[in-house]
């Protein structure tokens, strides 16, 4: 009959914890607690992915992330389980970001803000400046890409999602994804590195 108040800690991940698939199943059964656990596990990855994909204001990224998890909750019954849950969430994020970008006109003002956000780097000042310049070029070049090409690049090359999983998450044939990824790489290379392959 004793309760103890301990320093705050979250339960450590362990094999005994529910899998991502089980949490999605819980969402499908309408369990908000399962959604909360899913959020705890994946919100950082989804947030980072959206930030890189959409190039919009921070608060829009936050809103989109919220919508990603709500849509995941709503569509959990349709999750087929063939791809990692993280990739499935990325697929939802791609679709939501596409919808947002179509109606959002604030994209235009993003470049100037971006350069001020660059994280500190251990590089020398000159190398840091060059790297920042390349990052700025890449960011702008990414935003010039169509949403579909940008999604392919961020999903596959930045997030490192397997091609087969990325194609499934985006609802594409693998060949279509290959083509988009190739086009994105070519365009970005021209814009950032200033040369064709």
């Amino acid at each position: 009959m004793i309760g103890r108040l301990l320093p705050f800690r979250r339960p450590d991940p362990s094999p005994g914890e529910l899998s991502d698939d089980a949490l999605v199943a819980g969402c499908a059964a309408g369990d908000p607690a399962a959604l909360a656990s899913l959020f705890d596990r994946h919100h950082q990855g989804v947030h980072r992915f959206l930030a890189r994909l959409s190039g919009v204001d921070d608060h829009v990224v936050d809103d989109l992330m919220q919508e990603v998890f709500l849509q995941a909750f709503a569509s959990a019954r349709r999750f087929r389980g063939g791809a990692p849950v993280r990739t499935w969430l990325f697929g939802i994020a791609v679709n939501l970001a596409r919808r947002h970008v179509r109606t959002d006109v604030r994209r235009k003002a993003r470049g100037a803000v971006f350069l001020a956000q660059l994280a500190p780097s251990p590089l020398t000042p000159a190398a840091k400046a060059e790297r920042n310049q390349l990052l700025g070029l890449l960011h702008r070049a990414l935003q010039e890409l169509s949403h579909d090409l940008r999604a392919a690049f961020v999903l596959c090359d930045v997030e490192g999602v397997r091609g087969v999983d990325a194609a499934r998450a985006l609802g594409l044939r693998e060949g279509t994804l290959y083509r988009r990824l190739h086009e994105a790489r070519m365009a970005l290379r021209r814009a950032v590195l200033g040369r064709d392959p």
Partner: protein
Amino acid sequence: MAALERAFPEADGDLQAHLAECARCKSAWSGWEQLAELGKALPARDLDDGRRQAIRDAIVLRSSTRSAAARGAGTWRTATAAVAAAAVLAVTARLAWMSTQPDPAPAPRVVRGAQVHGHEGARFMPISPPPDEIVRLTEGSITVEVQPLAPGDRFRVVTADAEVEVLGTVFEVEARNDRLGSVYVLRGRVEVRRVGHAPFVLNATERWRSEPTTAAIPEATAGAALVRRPPPPRAEAPHTAPREPRARAMGKDPPDSPHRPTARPEELRYQEGWGALRSGDLTRAAVAFEEVAAADGAGALAAEAVYWRAVALGRAGRSAEAARALADYVKRDPAAPRADEAAAMLGWLLFERGDTAGATRHFTRAARSGVGAAKESATRGLEAIGHGGSP
């Protein structure tokens, strides 16, 4: 180059062999790897804890609403995938509970072998299923009665700065601003520990309460902070807040708040929010109103604060947050004085976001309003939807 056109990061051995022999492809691949490396270095803001928690609360609240609606419509269906896991979690779903709004007659919620009673204004939710059950408490107080647990089972109540682990007792925990505010033990004993402070023991009928500001936990024996007294009365008379005259037009500047010589802290904060809203400092206004809403619980002032916070957020272009605040306002009291105006505004926000179904629902409600501005605005909204208009 054909090989590269189908190249993914997880390139196979054949591709690597080709790259070793083909200088052109190797150069191209190297460039793409450089791009990918740069892409990984693209800055992405980290979520601070407060923002993360706010988003988490919002999705849980909205998902809970959706679940309730689905159950009410008889559309409950079980998952076809991962049936075994779903079965386990379905039990959790049945037992799951959440409280973000004051319940006029709150009934104890049963979480497996425990009864959790959320007092007025309490915000809490389960975040982990058995055998390691965790209840997350962010605001207000709950009373927990836990039956003796099976070996290996755990039941915990957590705030941002502390954790109460239960082995079988009856106690009450209160959080303020996501920090442990007080612990009152009705039966049994509780050992209290907080980060950076020495532990101490509370026996039955003992209460520990944090200081209003620094919330210092007494060292070791903690005798100075312990008082023996019965629990305070739970029912608190609703505060009758100074209600502002109604704004008759959507988004019209709110009127000045009346001067009250003996204003409570939240009333003063409310007035600060007004000042910020009038001066165009929308972020500060939103923060002030949010604090008032949290401090006043179910009071009328809190309802007003929720509404004007939504207005501030909407004017600041934070439409998603504004929509949530408006939904919160309408939900907490559908008959609230500004509910029709809120419904109309919410309709437009949802319409702008492409949620025509949600917009139609709120416009339809507001179109029946006796408030002219709300009715007119909602009618225009319904016309826009009917004409297939786009934001």
